[in-house]
């Protein structure tokens, strides 16, 4: 093991495209190829192409795979139909969030758990430990997949240009899915795109329609090039991590290490809906249950702080960690993410603020930007919602 950052299967492609690379969670990843603003706008108006191969895939199989995941995660995973996906979290026994996840049910007894790159080992270790006593296998598949995402309003049309074929056998109890049009949001099925075997998922992290394609690393370059060619006339451009962050911020999506931490429960983050206390497996027990019941009660009765959106009245940009202050200068919260928004034309932030200041429209809220108290409007999340 060396400290040198890992490179994805698309590394040479990124360098040939002139990408500015950055170390991210131990991976050398493209930050931007040209202007991050143009990349952001391309995803909102046309389409963007992302290499997300740093994400951590963990396969869980076996007769009790569903029971294990119901026990290890906070969601009702056994209730997910084959061919569908669910956003969920894995928590500590004390309720703190270890990671947020997307879980795909690939078959009756097979799931793929996708963890954040920075937490993949933590999630793998926790799942492996929690698998004790279950007839299920937890497999590290991080090296088995490259992940390419196509996001934006043109993404469906671009993919259709690559003769996509879906397996139609997996959606239980529903109509067979003949083509990509029928693939719902948060569904994922095996198939082929441009002749490459892929798990084709209609998921993403940008607030737009889009697809995530899990492929073998050796197929990544061919698929990237096919998508680039197919998307050329539709305005598809390669996009880096920088615009991914402003896209997800506008869409009000939390980021691990910012809005979500081990010091935060799903209820503190305003995401209590992902916690399902009514589970039918394991007598309803799951890791963190008691602590999360208490957190749910606290969030209902007397929440200490709430996650809100802030929109700048001026142009100075809030950054993670900056204090949120009331008009008398009292610190009432902290920014967790902040960036200039290309879509709204103003700086935005997500912040945890004292519940008394969390109501949209609350007057007198400011962010302390290096000593200057800049006025901010408190708003409900998300900042941006696409027109469907």
């Amino acid at each position, binding site marked *: 093991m060396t400290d040198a950052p890992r490179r994805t299967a698309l590394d040479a492609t990124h360098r040939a495209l002139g990408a500015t690379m950055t170390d991210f969670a131990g991976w050398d990843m493209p930050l*931007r190829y040209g202007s991050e603003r143009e990349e952001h706008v391309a995803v909102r108006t046309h389409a963007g192409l992302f290499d997300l191969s740093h994400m951590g895939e963990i396969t869980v199989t076996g007769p009790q795979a569903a029971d294990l995941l119901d026990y290890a995660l906070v969601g009702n995973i056994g209730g997910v139909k084959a061919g569908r996906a669910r956003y969920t979290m894995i928590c500590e026994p004390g309720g703190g969030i270890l990671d947020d996840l997307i879980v795909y049910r690939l078959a009756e007894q097979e799931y793929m758990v996708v963890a954040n790159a920075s937490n993949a080992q933590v999630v793998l270790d926790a799942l492996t430990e929690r698998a004790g006593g279950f007839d299920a296998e937890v497999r590290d598949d991080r090296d088995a997949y490259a992940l390419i995402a196509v996001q934006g309003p043109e993404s469906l049309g671009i993919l259709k240009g690559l003769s996509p074929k879906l397996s139609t056998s997996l959606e239980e109890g529903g109509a067979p899915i003949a083509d990509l049009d029928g693939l719902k949001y948060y569904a994922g099925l095996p198939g082929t795109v441009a002749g490459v075997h892929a798990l084709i998922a209609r998921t993403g992290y940008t607030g737009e329609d889009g697809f995530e394609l899990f492929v073998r690393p050796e197929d990544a370059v061919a698929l990237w090039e096919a998508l680039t060619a197919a998307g050329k006339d539709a305005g598809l451009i390669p996009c880096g991590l*920088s615009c991914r962050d402003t896209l997800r911020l506008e869409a009000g999506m939390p980021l691990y290490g910012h809005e979500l931490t081990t010091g935060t429960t799903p209820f503190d983050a305003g995401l209590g809906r992902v916690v399902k206390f009514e589970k039918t497996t394991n007598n309803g027990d799951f890791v963190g249950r008691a602590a999360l019941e208490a957190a749910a009660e606290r969030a209902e009765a007397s929440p200490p702080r709430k996650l809100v959106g802030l929109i700048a009245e001026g142009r*100075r*940009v809030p*950054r993670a960690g900056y204090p949120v202050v009331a008009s008398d200068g009292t610190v009432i919260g902290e920014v967790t993410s902040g960036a200039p928004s290309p879509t709204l034309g103003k700086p935005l932030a997500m912040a945890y603020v004292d519940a008394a200041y969390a109501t949209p429209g609350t007057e007198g809220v400011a962010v302390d930007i290096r000593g200057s108290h800049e006025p901010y409007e408190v708003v409900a999340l998300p900042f941006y919602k696409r027109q469907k």
Partner: protein
Amino acid sequence: MDNPQQLRYSKEHEWLSAAEDGVSTVGITEHAANALGDVVFVQLPEVGATITAGETCGELESTKSVSDLYSPVSGEVTAVNEDVVSDPSLVNTAPFEDGWLFKVKVSGEPGELLSADEYTAFAAG
């Protein structure tokens, strides 16, 4: 990238034009603009302010970061580029031209400045 020969450069990646009637123009280099990414906000010194070589006199915000702006020379600010205040992307698109930041009436010798060739080597370093 080409760093214009007629300019001098600081190690903080500012450029300084030769003085005309004692007034020099200051901006940041293309190297610095590229490293910052899209600049979205600039805070410049006020006209009439006295600035000191090597000290901060403003801020540049990009999508992902904020950087201090250092003055490469001491003197009095005689003008600021209002175009770049209203459209900070000029710093990215034309750092040596329309993206200039402020003009300064030079009152003393500048700090340690580099020639174009020296700066090119420094920035590559």
